[in-house]
């Protein structure tokens, strides 16, 4: 790890400063497999150049470790890209792209905690990477929408087929998007917010 603190220059550029009035933040997590466009999406809507934060995960008994009994714990540093959108002079939204290795997504303590919701970004050529994410988000009660990232040359499947393949409940919105496009990425986030709003109107008594 290189420490930049000694330079005394670490910190946001002038144009990346938040106004002093900003009182609170909310976050949305973008989940998806490696290379599915998470970082691209963060970058296309963020007002700051995407930054990378990291966390040290202590793994014990995850996967195929310590067969020899030597390593009890493995320390792994997991990096995550994120961006920022100022919503108004008091509220700011942070957008986190989960690390590529899905087994780390839910180990990062505090990543999903308190998140408004999640976007599951999928590539129709590799749907399988999103199965686990959908299941785990449901388990945790994190509301999400599914965004189908348009990759040139990727097969186009009818939404119904994709839903069936992912075993996605009808209530969960599925939208098409182009993660490279700012407006499209913004619309994906808007779809998530609309979905969250719709959850309010559903009467809880309805089974």
């Amino acid at each position, binding site marked *: 790890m290189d420490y930049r603190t000694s330079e005394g220059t670490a910190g946001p550029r002038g144009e990346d400063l938040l106004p002093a009035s900003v009182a609170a933040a*909310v976050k949305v997590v973008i989940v998806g497999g490696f290379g599915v466009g998470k970082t691209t999406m963060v970058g296309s809507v963020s007002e700051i150049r995407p*930054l990378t934060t990291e966390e040290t995960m202590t793994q*014990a008994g995850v996967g195929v470790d310590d067969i020899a009994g030597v390593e009890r714990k493995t320390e792994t540093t997991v990096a995550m890209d994120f961006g920022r959108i100022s919503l108004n002079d008091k509220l700011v939204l942070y957008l986190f792209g989960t690390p590529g290795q899905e087994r780390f997504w839910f180990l990062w303590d505090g990543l999903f905690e308190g998140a408004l919701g999640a976007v599951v970004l999928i590539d129709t050529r590799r749907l399988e990477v999103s199965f686990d994410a959908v299941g785990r988000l449901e388990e945790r009660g994190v509301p999400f929408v599914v965004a189908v990232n348009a990759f040139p040359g990727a097969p186009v499947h009818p939404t119904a087929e994709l839903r069936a393949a992912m075993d996605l409940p009808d209530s969960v919105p599925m939208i098409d998007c182009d993660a490279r496009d700012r407006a499209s990425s913004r619309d994906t986030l808007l779809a998530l917010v609309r979905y969250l709003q719709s959850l309010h109107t559903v009467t809880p008594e309805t089974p």
Partner: protein
Amino acid sequence: MSATGKAWDEGGPERLYAVDQNHGPQPSPPRPVELVSLIVARAEPEPGTAPEQAAVLRMCQFPLSVAEISAYLVLPVSTVTVLLAGLLEDGRVEVRAPVPAAELPDPELLQAVMHGLQNL
């Protein structure tokens, strides 16, 4: 611990403990800061302030999230959390907690997010 060296280590109890520690659904202890808590400096770095803490104070003249501090310092979030705990104790920084997202976020909050995004 035991310096006997060659003793066969069954590994049972310790390992279970380790697994439990890391994977049990234990409620995390109340954390002073979260990933998107906003930090604002309330003091200038003084001579003798640890360099990393001084860097935090310098960069937090305006609100900055824990994630951003971690990114700029190139330090893991947990390390930044520890740095901040020290600064918090002395009142050298102020924390603006994230909007608590309950089961369902507040409609007014969602409306604000909606408007903010539409203005992009």
